[in-house]
């Protein structure tokens, strides 16, 4: 109940969100998969936040080795087994969740921020500002996304911060394009012209009038992208470009565990990868449902 009230208030702040009142709960009731995905993400987030308190192997989660316990098969004591340094894998997965979730959110948030502002500026002012910004965007979009991120990350020191930086660098152009297209359709609206006529400064117009009205499809796209962001970070880590050991990160864990498959210790890379898969899938389902619901053409479809 409380959730739907909060949701309603949020929805009211963004006028382009055309969901009917009270339809939030109805929406989730119809779309079981979205509901399960949301629950999964919420539970995972809670577990991730509380990780140091939940698991008895908190230190190992942070990276401290426990050689005596190394390479244990999954058991009651270690539900997902232990890795080559004897660290409990379940604990490391929980700590890895922190890394992945935070990284995914930051990347999308940063890309949305940069993209929205640059796109709105380009769309609003038009002219040479528009041309310049769009050409720069085109140039960045010419690179296959992951490739540029890899190159940039490889050139900087391996760290989570740099990985996030590299990925954001390749992602913002998409949002710029989206924001610009939205801005172009919104800037002819009357309230923008009225504000302009009253002498409101351009940047205020952009911030107060344009951005709130274009932000919704951008946010929808953002939710869709969180899953992809998480996988991208993990892919970089798999290649050795993300967090340096001993920090727990799912992609890095798959990397470390890879060589141990050959001697039969299959659980080391399998479970972290599974966590990655399920998390990404949950975000993708959620994003997909949101997209179907907010698109007036597809809203009535049974999912």
């Amino acid at each position, binding site marked *: 109940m409380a959730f739907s009230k909060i949701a309603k208030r949020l929805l009211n702040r963004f006028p382009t969100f055309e969901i009917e009142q009270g339809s939030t709960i109805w929406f989730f009731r119809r779309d079981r998969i979205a509901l399960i995905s949301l629950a999964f993400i919420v539970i995972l987030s809670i577990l991730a936040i509380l990780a140091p308190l939940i698991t008895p192997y908190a230190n190992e989660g942070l990276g401290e080795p426990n050689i005596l316990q190394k390479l244990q098969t999954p058991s009651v004591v270690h539900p997902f087994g232990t890795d080559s340094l004897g660290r409990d894998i379940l604990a490391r997965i929980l700590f890895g969740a922190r890394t992945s979730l935070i990284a995914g959110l930051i990347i999308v948030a940063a890309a949305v921020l940069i993209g929205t502002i640059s796109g709105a500026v380009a769309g609003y002012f038009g002219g040479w500002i528009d041309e310049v910004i769009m050409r*720069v965007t*085109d140039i960045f979009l010419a690179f296959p*996304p992951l490739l540029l991120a890899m190159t940039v990350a490889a050139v900087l020191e391996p760290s989570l911060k740099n990985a996030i930086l590299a990925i954001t660098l390749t992602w913002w152009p998409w949002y710029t394009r989206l924001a610009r297209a939205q801005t172009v359709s919104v800037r002819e609206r009357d309230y923008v012209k009225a504000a302009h006529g009253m002498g409101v400064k351009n940047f205020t117009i952009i911030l107060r009038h344009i951005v709130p009205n274009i932000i919704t499809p951008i946010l929808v796209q953002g939710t869709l992208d969180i899953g992809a962001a998480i996988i991208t970070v993990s892919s970089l880590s*798999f*290649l050795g470009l993300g967090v340096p050991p001993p920090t727990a990160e799912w992609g890095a864990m*798959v990397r470390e565990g890879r060589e141990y498959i050959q001697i039969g210790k299959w659980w080391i890379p399998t479970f972290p990868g599974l966590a990655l898969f399920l998390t990404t899938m949950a975000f993708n389902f959620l994003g997909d449902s949101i997209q179907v619901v907010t698109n007036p053409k597809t809203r009535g479809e049974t999912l």
Partner: protein
Amino acid sequence: MSRGEYLLRRLGLGIVVIIGVLMITFIVSYIIPGDPARLYLGSRATPEKLAQARHELGLDQPIPLQFVSYISRLVHGELGISFRTKRPILDDIKIRLPATLELVISSMLLALFVGLPIGVLGAARRGKIFDQVSRLITIGGVSIPSFWLALILQLFFFLYLRWLPLGGRLINEVIMSHPIQIKTGFYLIDAAISGNWVAWWDAFIHLILPVAVLATYPISLVVRMTRASMIEVLSETYITSARASGLTEREILFKLALKNAFIPTLTILGLLFAYSITGSVLVEVVFSLPGLGSYMADAILSTDIYVLFAVTLVVTLIYIIVNLVIDLIQAAIDPRIRLGGREDL
């Protein structure tokens, strides 16, 4: 805007983009905190050798000059020397590119030939359960981490079932007993041309898992898009009109509707190519394939900067060309797109 003007404009934009791409790769190479000379020499670095290396690599010249010499070298096809292999990068790329292209092209073809029919047939059938299941499968397919899927399949098909090889392009025995005459670098083509069916089969088996892994994301996306756009197309009046003329469902589905539905799918083809090229890095690493992807991965580990940029540049240029081709195909198929402006009769 006539056709000529359109092409000219497109080309002009393309050139601007290419120059921009070159600039960015150059800039990124210039902001490395480290010292290329030091990386080049590795552990043998002494101050004198460093200075000498810097001079050799042209690092002591002012930046704009470096950019110019960078461009001129590129124009001559010189991509630099790899720190790791000490060979000209261009040679390395020439050797490794076919393996990657074989992988990427195979997976894109698989995506189209499997994804399109499934998407089309999936649109003909609607119903709550069918919709839910197809949604589950397509979104699942899009969410699977390729490197993890590769590992799991290796685990299952090699370690557990022993049906498929662990990696590489050929087994050593086959290399020795039935060597392939390399003409194109595509083992499947070369072996077939010379009738070397033993090697062909071996190459094929080695490609199954990598192609399957790389194609997972594209297939899911193609199925999804095709199905969605088919459903939209099938509700259009011109389809009802075609039915009212007595055309069969099969004709309508595969001849008429498909052409209309293919267009939105075409727009993602470029993205799929980009995904496949970069995804091949991960797949080649897991399956130990000697292609451009693993070359890139090795360069990452050894911070072989010039390789990184050379590969990025080459791949980006290929990507730009592919996008251009796709745009042209789109204009060819959809008569409405041509060059803006109607010439009414």
